[in-house]
């Protein structure tokens, strides 16, 4: 049974039909690649899965139960963590502060809540260790980290909060060769730990390197779905640009 099942997802922005009746399944401990040209609807789809937009039509099921997310917070509470292209980190806060962004640990209530900084820092170090991520310190400001390191912080945040599903939007964009390899390695490590991952990428080599299955979108419609071992980059590109296979 799929962990996440999306059926008939449609979304329109004004005159633009961003998604038209898209079906997607995500299985446990699976890495699913989501590919398509610019404007194919990849970002819209993950924003619906992560609670940023409500779909105009269609249903989401998590472990067979229908779910509706009114906000990113609700999706997160259901175990779906999203790592956005711009990473959604606060550069002026440190690593630990970002891992706990919006969910700070503290004692007391409301405005009188006092931060539990030490426990936050210790928990942050532990999760970094678990993922074998090496950073100078959990007190380092994110502003001072490289692109790959930021990606690692964003992934750690998802893992710390016990995400079952991690959605990554262009995780390797703007990274150097070595950082790219490390991030892909992290994706594999997530799968080893039983997480399901959805990866959006323009880089087909990266998709083929980590994904078990690939879903291709074109102009808001799902035009194909392949197991990675049973297809080629050429076939995927043909589906993306809409040239029928000979």
């Amino acid at each position, binding site marked *: 049974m799929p962990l996440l099942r999306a059926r008939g997802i449609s979304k329109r922005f004004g005159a633009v039909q961003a998604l038209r009746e898209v079906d997607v399944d995500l299985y446990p401990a699976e890495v699913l690649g989501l590919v398509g040209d610019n404007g194919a609807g990849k970002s819209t789809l993950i924003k619906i899965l992560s609670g*940023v937009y409500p779909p105009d039509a269609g249903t989401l099921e998590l472990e067979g139960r229908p779910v509706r997310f009114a*906000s*990113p*917070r609700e999706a*997160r509470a259901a175990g779906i963590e*999203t790592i*956005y292209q*711009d*990473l*959604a*980190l*606060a*550069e*002026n*806060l*440190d690593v630990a*502060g970002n891992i*706990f*962004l*919006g*969910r*700070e640990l*503290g004692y007391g209530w409301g*405005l*009188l*809540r*006092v*931060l539990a*900084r030490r426990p936050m820092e210790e928990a942050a170090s532990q999760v970094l260790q678990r993922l074998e*991520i*090496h*950073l*100078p*310190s959990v*007190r*380092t*400001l994110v*502003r*001072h*980290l*490289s*692109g*790959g*390191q930021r990606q*690692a912080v964003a992934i750690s945040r998802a893992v710390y909060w016990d995400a079952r599903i991690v959605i990554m939007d262009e995780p390797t964009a703007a990274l*150097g*060769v*070595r*950082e790219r390899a*490390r991030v892909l390695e992290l994706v594999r490590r997530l799968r080893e730990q039983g997480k399901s991952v959805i990866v959006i990428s323009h880089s087909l080599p990266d998709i083929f390197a980590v994904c078990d299955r690939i879903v291709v979108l074109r102009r808001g419609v799902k035009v194909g779905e392949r197991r990675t071992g049973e297809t080629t980059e050429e076939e995927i590109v043909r589906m993306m640009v809409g040239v029928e296979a000979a």
Partner: protein
Amino acid sequence: MAQKTDGVAAPPTRGPQRVEVSYELAMVAALGLIMAVVGALAPRFLQPDNLFQIARNFAFIAAAGVGEALVILSGGGGIDLSVGSVMSLGGVVTTKLLSLGYELLPAIGAGVLTGLVAGSVNGLLVTRARLTPLIPTLGMLSIAGGLALVITRGFPITELGPQADLFVSLGAGFVGPVPAPVIYMVAVVLLGWLVTTRTPYGYNLYAVGGNAEAARLAGIPVARVRCIAYVASGGLAALTGILLAARLSVGDATLGQGMELSVIAAVVIGGVSLQGGRGSILGLFVGAALIGVLQNAMVIVGVPAFWQQVVIGTTIIAAVLVDRLRLRIVSG
């Protein structure tokens, strides 16, 4: 991106606070230097009674500055232009109630409440009606100042009722050698510093100011975080205005007139970025102290009064230039 890729050998990063503190340290050093020079020129300057007098003079700016700093830290072009007028209004409401024979605490409570209401209006207009912060707070500057005039009918309130002495001692009194406003300022600055650095609200404030979109995606209630900053600014401005009225033992609609400029200057000189998310309450404190010391030093050294404004203005611009330069160095 010429950084090591595997993170083990990281770029020469420094701790989170340390970078921010380094600007504050530079400010403290500048402050120390000025004090040493002026002290050498005029030994009277460093006498404890003069230092306490300086502290008492900038206490009101620093205390109101805590609220202003929260607003500016919250980003989104956040600024509160109404602090001066709200100070006047708070002072006028409290002194008016005292003159009508009300007890001290209810009178002060009503004054602070007025400020909280003004701050709430600012906050709601900024976060719900999505007005550029400049506009509602500029309007509030006029509204609060006008209301203060309406209440006083343009005349200072000098008759402060049966508890006048107690009230005046709040602003003009001493605890040992320390003027009461200085104790108030230290308490407010300390509280502001603790809230910004030791509470989830403070972290959220920095997150919202640094990257509102990231904060929103992380589930932080951006509008609420910002709104609270405006409410705090209004409340603190009113309370500070009440103490200023106590210090001068008069309720006057012109009490805080123009103070918003000194308050914003202190925040900016203290290294709080108008972009939001960067700077600290301690920086604000040092900024306010620098203004206070400069003003006093110029009087003692004998700089003509008209030139003093020129010097303060130059300091504001110089501080921001230094900050800009520092940023360029830090970010390579």
